[in-house]
């Protein structure tokens, strides 16, 4: 009796392990935080780009309006790629673009904007990168679509054609 149960247990156990590994193979091994959770935006005070003045988050984000919170830096190469889309978005009435200049030198950032144009309605400055973490970002570029003080959508990496069209659709 015992001799029959034991092999059966082992075989089913290893079959189970096989199945898990087989399914596990299809999962990506690089971790990205969950993108689909609606969260409140953090409450913060930040320095305005090239000014000494601090501004608090309630002053920037009003209810009933769309905002695109975009983290960028002049040293970040993908930021150049997404700049076209930001420029096009800035022509839309319904959305304000808020930039967060991440770990950058002011003169480089200024040069970057004069070269490629300035799509931002307001730019905040994050010299040590902590503000980006308050937003739950971990790299540049990252963008957050904000409505009613909530993060509606989050994009890790540069904005591309697809995400741009999604934004436009959401704005309609």
């Amino acid at each position, binding site marked *: 009796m015992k001799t029959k149960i*034991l092999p059966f247990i082992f075989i089913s156990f290893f079959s189970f392990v096989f199945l*898990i590994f087989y399914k596990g*193979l299809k999962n990506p091994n690089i971790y990205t935080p969950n993108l689909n959770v609606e969260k409140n935006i953090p409450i913060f005070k930040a320095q305005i780009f090239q000014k000494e003045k601090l501004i608090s988050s309630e002053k920037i984000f009003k209810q009933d309006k769309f905002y695109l919170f975009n983290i960028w830096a002049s040293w970040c190469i993908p930021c150049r790629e997404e700049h076209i889309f930001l420029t096009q978005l800035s022509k839309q009435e319904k959305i304000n673009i808020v930039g967060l200049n991440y770990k950058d030198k002011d003169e480089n950032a200024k040069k970057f904007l004069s070269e490629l144009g300035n799509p931002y309605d307001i730019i905040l400055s994050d010299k040590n990168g902590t503000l980006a973490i308050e937003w739950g970002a971990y790299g540049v570029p990252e963008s957050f679509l904000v409505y009613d003080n909530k993060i509606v959508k989050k994009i890790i990496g540069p904005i591309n054609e697809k995400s741009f069209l999604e934004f436009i659709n959401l704005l309609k």
Partner: protein
Amino acid sequence: MASLIGYYSLIIGLFCSLLTIFYSIKNFNDNNVIKKEVLFFTFLQFFFVIISFLGLIVSFIISDFSNETVFNHSHTTKPLFYKISGTWGNHEGSLLLWLLVLTLFIFLFLLKSNNQPKKYRILTLAFQQIIITGFFIFLIKTSSPFNYIFPIPSEGLGLNPILQDPALAIHPPILYLGYVGSSIIFSSALAATASGYISKDWAKHIKGWVLISWFFLTLGILLGSIWAYYELGWGGFWFWDPVENVSLMPWLALTTLLHCILALEKRSILTSWVIILSIATFTLSMCGTFLVRSGILNSVHTFANDPDRGLFILIFLFSLIFLSLFIFFYFHKNENKNFKFFLLSKETSILVNNWFMMYFLSVILVGTIYPIFLEVISSEKISVGPPFYTKLIVPFLIPFLFAMAIGPKLKWIKSEVQNKINLIIFLVISFLISFLILKNLNDNFLLNSILLTSAFYLFFITTKDFMIKKIQNFSQNLAHFGFSLLILSILLNNIFSTEVITNLKIGETFKSKNLSINFQSIDQKDEQNFKSLIGKFEINSSKDESIILKPELRIYNQPNIITSEADIKISLLKDRFITMNSVQNQNYFNIRYQVKPLMIWIWISVLLISFAGISSFIRKIYEN
């Protein structure tokens, strides 16, 4: 050309596999000698794998970029040494090395097992050939090192600079000798089970192979951690990273096997357990290969991953597991259960050793693969890191160390603990010393002091045994002494390491109560395949003379990667370790300075342990 020869050699090698299996089956029921054909084809196969391997090395040396593997992992400006070591520094080449070791070992096995029963030898060969055939197909189908690219690129992509390092150049071959060596134990255990040859004789015969694999695996792991220590730049030597864990698991299984095979050899008990462990060792090596190569886990050391490869190894791995299950349950007769165990006996102490070893193994196994299970079942993602392993392993070390101190003193069957007073005196002394060392420590005083007491206890007892006992138990004493030294150095190192992380510009000085770090200057240098920035730091501490340390930042040209090279001042008592890193858009550097006590003793103790393995092996040869 060399690639072409290499490729066709592989195909011929695969055919040799089939021929060997064919002749083995034909030869199985004949007379008592192994046919010459079997031996011949086994040798031929080994020979062609060597040719194939040499073909790949030559392609690397002459930078033949028509070969995809060479193109992906080499570059003309790389020093010759790293061109050669680049051969096994990638997925395809390292698998070819696996295959080389597999065929080498079975060839040696056939040569060295003349006095064993013929059926057992033939069966071992057959099982080994199943593994070898699997690897041949894997290599040729999914990871051929000889893929051709056209048009031929004029320059290669280069080898990741952190792999361009002497320790890491020899780390894979040595580690693979350990991993793959366990394949012989696997095949031989299956063969011995199937032919009813599990016995004292078999234990005696296979012990040599266990020792050899164990020796190389220990050494391989050591090289890996030394490399991680000075190259990865954050001063640790063990990170509980999945890739490290998968090398530690077969090591634990092998160590367990090494102990309990003694019980089989001397008392012919624990037969089922020995078979299970022999199977488990290689299965764990294969499982490690699967976890690392399939990219299912997320680790600092990743190979280029490809789901096809993962799937192939997975199916292969589980075929081997089911094959072993079948053989074990179908052929293995249950052993004599009327055996008497006494609490104080060598048998029981071996069981206790096995018990703890298996526990450590299960902690690591569960910790490593649990995230995969969780993600598949509930799509939640978690990390399992160092705190998990320390929490579950460290407290259990205490009884383990005590048992390790007493266990070897016991005799077979039934025994008494002798010299009880001596043992108690040692315990008191160990505790006093630990107390004195730790008296200024605030957090975790209790756990640390008990732990340190047990480590010192083992240390004293083994030191004493080491000096008193006769040459007979030399290897065992040496290994246990080495282990006590290892635990002791790791503990003290952990407790007393200090670290300063700060940002400094050139000319600035960091000051604290008893330490100052002065960033004096920075130098530039051009090397063959990288540029280097060398910082010069003067370190003054209240306790030591001042020293100059020169960490480096290397900017490699191909591929374009910046690496940080630590500068380490090594001494018997402590290592002083410094790294510098550039910070995005700032003109200061991030400096990390560490004082790590007794570092060198960690390496020395592991060397002693592995040396114990080889000395036992040599003794075994000498005795025969």
